[in-house]
């Protein structure tokens, strides 16, 4: 093997590792978002004389961020597959545990918590824009935006050094398209075509993730250039600002300045209509309560099934994605069930999902 080939092999390996990390990064954010969403009580579960759903809007705001993270997972998987990598979704060594840190300790710590201001603030922290992309470009990234800046740089470097065709060697059959993906949160970018087209598409995909996320390079605006479907084609705002909306009980205009509070319409938040789920639920709390342990196991099975299904969809058979929709409903149902059950310790707090992948024996 020539030294150039060896170098190419190493570069490709490094790129695959980075993208695999990105995949896990996106995945890591989903359980906290989902947990917060599902902890909000539904119709009939809170004490209200008027038959109105409370917190429908915060749920939708968090849900929108969550489905965009799911889209980001698909986009990262497409890029990873395009360069011939293997997206791993069910490797227990790589999967997140909670509490845990993002970016392998460099990023903020994430917890599983109910819908509360502290948790929304921590979501905001996750989606914070990098102040200075300079260190990030050298590999010293502390934010998600910085991390993707680094990935883009490395990918461009590799393409420039070895040529696009040496990098984009993946099987086009593995590309998830809008036909396969249950299109919420935006449209999928397929990394297909000539090697130059694939390079452009890969860059566009990563840029889309960055823009929807922390809104780093959007100037002094809250908008993320993404157009919300509908006749008005309103511009969406980046995740960071979506969480700010909840904290301020007010929507942003896309033209609002990032340094000012939002100026749009009211967004009504009721922090009290929430299940008092314990922070960072863990299996050891269920040891004395076999019913809870069984329910928790059932939840983890469903979560494991989702991850296994995603792994198949990204590596073998795209059509597996569609079958996961009922699975996601099941996860929601089981999580809500757990969060309605008080813990036996008398603390008044309730159980919650631990989002643990069950390793097959």
């Amino acid at each position, binding site marked *: 093997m020539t030294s150039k080939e060896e170098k190419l092999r190493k570069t490709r390996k490094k790129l695959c590792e980075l993208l695999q990390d990105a995949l896990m990064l996106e995945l890591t954010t989903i359980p906290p978002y989902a947990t917060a969403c599902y902890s909000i009580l539904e119709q009939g579960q809170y004490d209200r004389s008027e*038959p109105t759903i409370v917190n429908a809007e915060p749920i939708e705001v968090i849900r929108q961020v969550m489905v965009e993270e799911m889209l980001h997972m698909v986009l990262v998987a497409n890029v990873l597959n395009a360069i011939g990598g293997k997206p791993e979704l069910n490797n227990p060594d790589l999967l997140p545990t909670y509490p845990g840190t993002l970016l392998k300790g460099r990023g903020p710590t994430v917890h599983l918590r109910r819908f509360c201001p502290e948790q929304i603030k921590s979501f905001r922290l996750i989606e914070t824009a990098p102040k200075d992309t300079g260190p990030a470009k050298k590999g010293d990234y502390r934010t998600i935006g910085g991390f993707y800046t680094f990935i883009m740089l490395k990918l461009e470097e590799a393409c420039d050094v070895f040529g696009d065709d040496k990098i984009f060697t993946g099987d086009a059959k593995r590309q998830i398209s*809008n036909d396969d993906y249950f299109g919420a949160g935006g449209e999928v970018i397929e990394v297909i075509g000539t090697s130059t087209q694939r390079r452009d598409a890969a860059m566009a995909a990563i840029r889309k993730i960055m823009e929807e996320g922390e809104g780093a390079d959007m100037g002094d605006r809250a908008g993320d250039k993404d157009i919300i479907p509908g006749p008005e084609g309103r511009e969406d705002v980046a995740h960071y600002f979506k969480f700010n909306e909840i904290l301020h009980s007010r*929507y942003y205009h896309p033209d609002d300045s990032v340094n000012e509070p939002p100026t749009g319409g009211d967004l009504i938040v009721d922090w009290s209509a929430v299940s008092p789920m314990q922070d960072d639920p863990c299996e050891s709390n269920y040891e004395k309560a076999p019913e809870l342990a069984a329910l928790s196991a059932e939840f983890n099975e469903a979560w494991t099934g989702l991850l296994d299904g995603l792994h198949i969809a990204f590596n073998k058979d795209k059509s597996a994605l569609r079958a996961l929709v009922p699975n996601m*409903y099941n996860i929601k149902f089981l999580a809500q069930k757990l969060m309605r059950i008080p813990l036996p310790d008398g603390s008044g707090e309730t159980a919650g999902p631990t989002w643990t992948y069950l390793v097959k024996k």
Partner: protein
Amino acid sequence: MIAVTDDDRTYDVVIVGAGFAGGILAKELVSDGHSVLILEAGEDHGKTWETYRSYLDQYYLSLTKTPNSPYPNLPTLPSPSVLDITAVHGTEPDTNGYFVQRGPLPFGSNYLMAYGGTSLHWLGTSLRMLPADFEMQSRFGLGVDWPFKYEDLKSDYERAEWEIGVSADAEEQTPKALGIKTSGPNDNRGYFARDYDYPMHSIPSSYVDNFFARADGMPIEIGEDAGDTVHLKVSHTPQGRNSTPRRPKAARKILVGGEPQEQFRPRGSTGPFAFMGQRCEGNSSCIPICPIQAKYNAMKTLEDAKYTGKHRMKTITQAVASKVELGANGRVSGIVYKKYPFPGVPQYELRRARGKQYVLAGGAVENVTLALASDICRSSGELGRNLMDHPYMMTWGSAPEPVGPFRGPGSTSSYANFRDGTFRDKTAAFRLEIGNWGWKFAAGAPNSDVERLVEQENLYGKALRDKLYHDVQRQVRIGTLVEQLPRATNRVTIDPAYRTPMGEFRPVISYDLDDYSRAGLAASYDTCAQIFQRLGIRNHTAYNPSDAGYFTYEGRGYTFFGAGHLVGTHRIGTDKHNSVTNDKMRAWDHENLWLVGAGSMPTIATSNPTLTLSAMAYRAARAIKTAVRKGGAA
């Protein structure tokens, strides 16, 4: 005399009713630069997420999930409800509900007066009519012919399918592919235009559909001729709900009404929930409400119109059109409406809306009560007559194995085989709709099962759960939608004795099933019984003489319900003696008045009328645009 305040502004077109027809008309007209006012009788709701959410709340809290259960029923604006239907005895009309029912059979259908109209609770079935359906008189000597043919409505069907967002595959939907032995030799040719296809792929078949498909190929005799025998086939039903958008084949785009189209972008919820509902998730509550708006509703089209029209488009809700006023030459000079500030309080201000052209698009019944109250459109004597519906009959049973009901949209497939054929000279055509929700509509399952098992079989705990699962998992149901012929005696009238608290006329309805439809229902029951037998389904169907919709035919009794398909009361036609409007839906008697909606259809045939009325709205919109441009001159 109470003074009527005139609205400040005169519009190009004033439309009564913000539903399927009103939405399409408004969008078409404002896109052409015309100004539009919509008067909607319903509450000021549906425009924002809060009101749609409040519908959902109401739905979750309702004990009986009837089609109108999520939506307000105001004293200011009573709506017909399926819970009000009782048998009509003798000459005493049944006045339980909003309708005054003169019988002899009760008219079992309802509709919804709200922003978005009945589109809020429709199932989404979007069928085109068949060529024969436009020629009932010339082919079978029954009913009337339409003033135009299938071919003339084809491109408007395409437009309507793309506006609603219909999920189906054209190659599966030709009469031949559906297994229909058409009554005309050329009915299959060019049923779809060459470069046309639906905007989205078919909704996947349910497990129940696949179970029924096991009887495919089974011969069923219908009519007197051996040649009429059809072979059963389960086929996808085109539906106005979001599935996977179709990718046009590389260079050749899909031509819709002659216009090349890019890949369709599914429209989800309105308002800030735009990321919801871009695909159907199988929430299984299409009727009465889709929680994510993956099912089309007219609010989506109205939102487009509002956005395109900007200041040219105005909607006034809580505005009950009360009288169409005439000026010189029988032209309409204004519409007086009752604007009520508080939903639920029958106090109002009388106002007058003015336009160059006026459209009644409030549905087949409301259009008629308004026209009758205004004493207009009288020369044909047809106004209010020829009321048709799809008498809806159910057969239900227990499958020999679990079939996974209560999942997915209410119905995803049907037996379309009986929608046309030479048998139609004696027996009404029908469509057999395969239900996905067990005995929900037929017997109130699964709640009724719980009640039965607890109260009658004394079960509880695990035994109850197991038995419930066992029973419910095997529930299957077929619904029959049979055609009706236009009859002068099936009609909507008004009577000063019956008014709403707002002083508006309540619809007085006379309704019956003729032997033609009864024969169709009997034939469909026999067909279902054969299908059940073939598939080993135990028949649990029970028709009780105490049912409101009980009727007999050839010594056997059946029960029918309404399908909510109100058709025919202001039909189009060739001259002022046989119809209320011309084929463009302009009133024969009043040159600047248009009546648009399912009431315009001369026959109902076997397709749910929404798609046809939507297509006809495009036809009317073109004529109205021309009329506005000409300044209303005849």
